[in-house]
């Protein structure tokens, strides 16, 4: 009985430790991002407009960044569909970078492809 008790105390602890240690998809919220705006420029390596969130993979000098956008509804409403850009296009993403400086990941509020601007989070987009 004593051994069993120790075991199920260990599980939540192991879970918490594992959660703290691991990077991932980061769909929801902004708690994992820096406050100030971050600007990323690169070449689109992959476009995904779908559930649960749209994403871009952006090549910046040989390193791939994951740019999180909004869920597909708001992303498409902002005008950004899978046909709005192509792999190889230059893109500027403005938004908030991951708090983890080692992680090449950001959540964009605005993306610019060519002369088109898409505010996927219009409420959070920069006003200037």
């Amino acid at each position: 009985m004593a051994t069993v008790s120790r075991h199920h105390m260990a599980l939540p602890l192991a879970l918490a430790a594992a959660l703290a240690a691991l990077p991932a998809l980061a769909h929801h919220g902004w708690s994992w991002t820096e406050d100030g705006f971050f600007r990323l420029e690169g070449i689109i390596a992959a476009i995904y407009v779908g559930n649960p969130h749209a994403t871009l993979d952006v090549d910046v000098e040989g390193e791939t960044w994951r740019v999180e956008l909004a869920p597909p509804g708001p992303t498409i409403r902002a005008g950004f569909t899978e046909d709005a850009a192509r792999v190889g296009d230059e893109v500027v993403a403005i938004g908030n970078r991951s708090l983890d400086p080692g992680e090449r990941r950001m959540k964009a509020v605005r993306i610019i492809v060519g002369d088109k601007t898409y505010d996927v989070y219009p409420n959070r987009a920069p006003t200037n």
Partner: protein
Amino acid sequence: MEWLAALEQSRLAGALKASFYVYPLINAGHVLAIGFLVTTVTLIDLRVLAILPARAVPSATLLRRLAIGALLVAAATGLSMFAIRASDYAAMGVFRLKLVLIALAAFNFVLFAVLFRGRSDPSGPLAAGLAATSLALWLGVLLAGRFIAFV
């Protein structure tokens, strides 16, 4: 990995990826199934731990069937959502942790069923230990699952 990419290219994944209604509905079905699963498992475990009196819970047979049915629905809806971005999820530590916890919880469930087969109201230290482990594991599954969307 190839099978993950193949899963992402499947018609199921393609349909769910672009849908405005189906994906949230599948997601809701997943939540509903987990609600059933955790509730039924909790009732079984609290009864075994003697925290709930026998008259307070439906028969263990009924609860176990509901739990198994809910697990199957949760697995089907979960697999559907996994298929959309299979390689991304498979690379996530918290997702893999969830699968490990499900395997452990399912093993614990089967172990209990085998050890106490035919006993209508199992009790004692071993039964209580397995029931407490079950509660911890299924709660862990729920937490790991929820964190997939946030970490």
